[in-house]
């Protein structure tokens, strides 16, 4: 299997405070990976470093390419549409994506919009939190990228929207693409994860296949994750 992401000795400081220290992480093609950790542990920072939105030291190679500017064409990130004013219609935003991303697939987008029941004539400012997240997911998955980065796609979202989003992830993730989903609440996504990466103490504290955790320790992903904070499970 080939690697979609290879991070080497990545360090990131903000205001002289170390957020991530000397991180190594390799992700294979075709996986769904849970990026877990407490709020403020550095999950979002790690994702931002991969997209190039934050600048650290060390090397990050996406699809074997370590030039930050090139990552952008391989990576599809759940950007929160901050560049648009609240009076912007969803149609307009989709047109923006279509123009700017060569890998934006209009047909996939239409399918996603139908599946997630999004009314595209609405304005950005009129959307509920759940609806906005659905729009963001539709735009993110409509691109044919190699690496999808979903930053806390379920925070503050009702359970129906959550189920829809999880289904659309399973349905539309290309087989040869890898998807990273960050969350601090594990149980809802545990069944769809191939692997979990846990960010703790400024580093990648653990990186394991989820079924290996279940087999090795006989506990669930959530229990395992919590045990790391209590120091309950001995692990190498």
């Amino acid at each position, binding site marked *: 299997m080939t690697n979609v992401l290879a991070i080497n000795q990545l360090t990131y*400081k*903000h*205001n*002289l405070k170390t957020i991530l220290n000397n991180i190594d992480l390799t992700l294979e093609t075709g996986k769904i990976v849970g990026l877990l950790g407490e709020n403020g542990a550095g999950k*979002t920072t790690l994702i*931002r470093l991969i*997209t*190039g*939105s*934050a*600048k650290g030291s060390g090397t990050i190679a996406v699809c074997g390419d370590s030039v930050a*500017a*090139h990552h*952008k*064409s391989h*990576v599809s*990130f*759940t*950007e*929160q*549409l*901050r*560049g*648009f004013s609240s009076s912007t219609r969803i149609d307009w935003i989709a047109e*923006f994506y279509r*123009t*700017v*991303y*060569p890998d934006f697939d209009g047909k996939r987008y239409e399918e996603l919009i139908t599946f997630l029941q999004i009314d595209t004539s609405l304005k950005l400012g009129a959307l509920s939190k759940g609806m906005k997240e659905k729009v963001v997911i539709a735009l993110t998955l409509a691109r044919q990228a190699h690496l999808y980065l979903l*930053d806390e796609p379920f925070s503050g979202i009702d359970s129906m929207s959550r189920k829809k989003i999880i289904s659309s992830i399973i349905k539309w993730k290309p087989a040869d693409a890898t998807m990273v989903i960050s969350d601090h609440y594990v149980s809802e996504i545990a069944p769809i994860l191939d692997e979990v990466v846990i960010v703790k103490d400024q580093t990648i504290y653990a990186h394991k296949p989820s079924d290996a955790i279940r087999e090795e320790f006989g506990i669930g992903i959530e229990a395992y994750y919590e045990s790391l904070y209590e120091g309950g499970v001995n692990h190498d």
Partner: protein
Amino acid sequence: MTSFGAVFKVMSKDRFRTTTKVIGAEVAVIVVSILWSWVTGNLTGGAFFGLTAVWSMPAMLAAFIFLAVANEHVYTRDTYRLIPVGETKLYSANLLSSCVMYLYVGVVQLVLYFVTITIDSDALKGILAGMKAGMESPNFSNAEAAKIVFGLLLMSCALILMSWTTISLVHLVVSSTNNFLPNVSRRAVNVVLYVIVIYLVVRVAAFLISKFNSLDSMMSAGTQVQFGMNIVGILVIAAIEIVANIFLLKKWVETIPN
């Protein structure tokens, strides 16, 4: 990779909307002013052009500010920074888009002037004749008047460009230092920067005032060369700032987190 044209297109579409709103507001205000003058019975000859000229200034200023804001948004929003283009392309598309949209606002102003001058032509002739008589020494030929107007336009364009690049430079320096300085030194840097900016604004304003005061003497060959040199100087400063801005974007400037 996304083409320069695509980036330019999405940026301009958004700015076209904003600037058109500004123009709409301007026209509405002009119409209301004219109606008001008519109702109160103060609609004198030349009022159409006069009111348009008066309201044209704040409209140009508003467009300038809105476009500056749009410019700066691009640097710190993932919506734009994640577009698969290099920083140089992103920066140039951004600046060019604002320039073109400002040009659009400017051309609309000229059209407004032209229309209102045509309406007011009789009254204005008298006023212009009076103005000409009022000016003492130089009697401008038409060619010379055109030269002055062209020179001033060029100067305005250069100044607007430099204002935008300066605003960006300050913004990007603040944004860069924010990432690696602790809070206390950050505030110090910000204060120093604001002082520099205020100083620059005062200097430019003073320069402008002196220029307009010496309009009369602009026709002598020596001052023309000097005027041209000033424009080149401004453009050189803008170019240096552009290079610095792109460097900052590449190296340090991060976007606002989600």
